[in-house]
């Protein structure tokens, strides 16, 4: 089954849960509603003919232009994009699933955005989600032990956010 027919099958099954479809891109992707992530992922993994049994990668891309001059010309609002790269070993095809999030839940920029965890579907998501939480600041609800993995536990901030500031000092070690 090629990517196009997978997407058609998904659209028939989930309807308006699929927000956008891009089949002309280098890697074909679909964008879905965050709320139906678990349902769609379960479907993608378990349906005969699709069987995307491998979760290759979870990435978060931070869309925030920190330069106000450039930001004024942009046609998008600041947001986060969570990207799931899935592939099938039995059928040798792949699919990219994306979803969009607000950068923060609240105005004070204290509450991280929530996404349901897919670690129940693919065990490898456990570590990937911890890494994304650690570096990009996304809260995965339902994750068994969401804590920092690459940075020390007392690290402040999320380094892969575009507005991240390097700390001036960490336990007596001077930064910059």
């Amino acid at each position, binding site marked *: 089954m090629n990517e196009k027919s997978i997407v058609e099958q998904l659209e028939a099954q989930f309807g308006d849960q699929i927000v956008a479809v891009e089949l002309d891109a280098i890697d074909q992707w679909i964008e879905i509603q965050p709320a139906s992530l678990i349902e769609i992922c379960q479907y993608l993994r378990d349906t005969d003919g699709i069987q995307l049994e491998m979760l290759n990668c979870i990435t978060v891309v931070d869309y925030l232009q920190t330069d106000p001059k450039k930001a004024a010309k942009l046609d998008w609002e600041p947001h986060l994009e969570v*990207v799931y790269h899935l592939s099938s070993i039995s059928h040798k095809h792949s699919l990219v699933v994306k979803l969009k999030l607000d950068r923060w839940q609240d105005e004070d920029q204290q509450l991280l955005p929530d996404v349901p965890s897919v670690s129940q579907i693919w065990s490898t998501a456990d570590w990937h989600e911890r890494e994304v939480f650690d570096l990009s600041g996304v809260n995965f609800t339902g994750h068994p032990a969401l804590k920092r993995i*690459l940075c020390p536990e007392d690290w402040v901030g999320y380094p892969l956010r575009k507005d991240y500031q390097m700390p001036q000092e960490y336990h007596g070690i001077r930064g910059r």
Partner: protein
Amino acid sequence: MSSQLDDQRIIEFDVRTDEMLVNMGPQHPSTHGVLRLVLRTDGEIISQVEPQIGYLHRCAEKIGENLTPRQWIPYTDRMDYLAGMNMNLGWALTVEKLMEHELSDKAKHLRVLIAELGRIASHLVGMGAYGLDLGTFSPFLYAFREREKILDLFEDVCGARLTYSYLTPGGATADLPPGWLERCQEFLDQFEPVIQEYHALLTTNAIFIKRTAGIGVMSAEMAIDYGCTGPVLRGSGVNHDLRFHGEEIYTEMYDGYIFDVVCEKDGSYPVDETYPPVPEDAVLGDCWHRFYVRMLEVVQSIKLVRQAMERYSSASGDWGIPIKLSQRLPAGEAYLETEAPRGQMGFYLVSDGTAIPWRVRARSSCFCNLSVTAPLCQGCLLADVPAIVGSLDVVMGEIDR
């Protein structure tokens, strides 16, 4: 005394070993870099393992957001520093995928040649270090003796012995120097018979088999569930190698080459009378099989290098002129995984149309391979932990990025 037992005999029946937390690493020599394992043990039995990683973290992805793709090549060297060439190749192909850059045939053959030599060098370290993990020193010396010759070849090509930065978006930084192919040929002729020594030292060694066969058994389903790739996945009997099953931009490099995916099928490996037989105690998916897959892959890589040399010398075109240092990238995104020696190394590149990527992501194969440690080590003996972690052949530089 109040704490005195009424009946002294109870103590005889109720001798218990206390649960103990053992900290292994981060400097333990058998952990392939700075990996720390927190073990919860009950006597000799492991009840829980928690790998602690991040000691080499330098956020290479953030650095990639501030450099052009060609400037980032040296950072890929330092990920899997035992297979720098293969890391270069993965990133170079990702950039070319986004730019839709076409390579000449000669450049493709050059890349196959270099990448497969890199695979041999990497598997040699994997083999030697695995011997060290299990307490034998000699295989390490044998492995490094041959690896040294590959490093000499690489040094002739690019001047570096570890961090090559040789393969780069657009092709390679230089052509092969005169007389190099003859030296490479000489090395292969000398190296091929030596593999039997490795089999005698480790693969068929009775102690080695006792330490690895039937230990750390991982089913194919579990390997896929945990995102394991490369020899770890094929050691569980899954026929999946991106050189065959990957994306076109990668598989077209290997078009027309004759080689096999090394994985067990119906209880046996591809037939060759020089391969040692599978020992009776070995179970598909155990440490021995993961090790054996690497050993057989070395033989396949030798085959590939021989074919690539032949094709390279008769191919037309240039060796691949690198793109400009600050070449503007087209807006868009590309994700590509390649078959690095330790598994599927993925790079993800998001561009907003300037020369500097908006986002760079490295999907580490060892990161996923290591995440399976906790379930694999549960219930095993303390002495088996280095055997299991070593059989995954992880490199911390790539995990921590």
